[in-house]
């Protein structure tokens, strides 16, 4: 039998941050949205018009775009599951920017054209390198009890 007694109002709900908003989290959402846009644009252009020139780099561009999109949506949604998704996406992003950044120096022949992540994101003011670090720190700080 379903219990139809209404639940007493929970004195501690709504959980989470004060009603002031989510602070720096909103800046993260905006930055991730910007990079999702930039990476998607760059990847689709590269894949459509010059795929054969550097398939590895361009597929990585596409991967970066997908990860930025996922991270943007997850950060914006801001519920428990989404934050877990965001943490996973941002971790992959950090690994990606480190590996691709390193490879673009070690094996430049595979990266004749820039991706968002090559040279640790130097073409984007190293924001792609800083962003995942900020993202992970933020997720760590905003973890709920």
């Amino acid at each position: 039998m379903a219990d139809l007694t209404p639940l007493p109002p929970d004195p501690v709900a709504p959980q989470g941050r004060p009603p002031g908003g989510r602070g720096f989290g909103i800046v993260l959402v905006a930055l991730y949205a910007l990079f999702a846009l930039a990476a998607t644009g760059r990847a689709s252009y590269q894949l459509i018009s010059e795929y054969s020139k550097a398939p590895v780099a361009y597929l990585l561009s596409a991967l970066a775009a997908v990860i930025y999109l996922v991270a943007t949506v997850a950060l914006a949604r801001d519920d428990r599951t989404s934050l877990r998704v965001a943490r996973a996406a941002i971790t992959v992003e950090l690994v990606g920017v480190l590996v691709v950044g390193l490879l673009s120096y070690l094996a430049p022949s595979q990266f004749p054209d820039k991706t968002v992540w090559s040279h640790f994101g130097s073409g984007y003011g190293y924001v792609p390198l800083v962003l995942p670090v900020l993202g992970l720190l933020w997720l760590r700080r905003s973890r709920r009890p």
Partner: protein
Amino acid sequence: MPNYPEGVLSWLTVAVLVVAALYGVVALVHVVRDTIVDDRLLLTAVALELLLLAQVVVGVVLGLHTTRDFEAPVFYAYLGTLPLVPPFVTFLALKDKTRWAMGVVAGSAVVIAVFLARLTQMWTLNG
């Protein structure tokens, strides 16, 4: 081939830059005073948005009729992306009434200026 007045684009770009700068300043005042979205900011956003939409129309029309050798796909992508910026950041600032969100609005003015610079670069590089 009709002679399309390409100067319209540069005048429009100047107008967008001026209004974007105004938008950035208005947002910055809000950041400093820690105040929330008001009519002045919204009206500036609307003006900016209308100019950006006008720029899309003019940019596409001129792009289709020009003999310039420019990176058309990237140019159109930037052109089409710009009008998305003011509604997005305004939405953020309406939902999240903190200095941080207002800071994003102020920052978006800089992003718009950078996009405009890239657009102008693409348009004039091989012209």
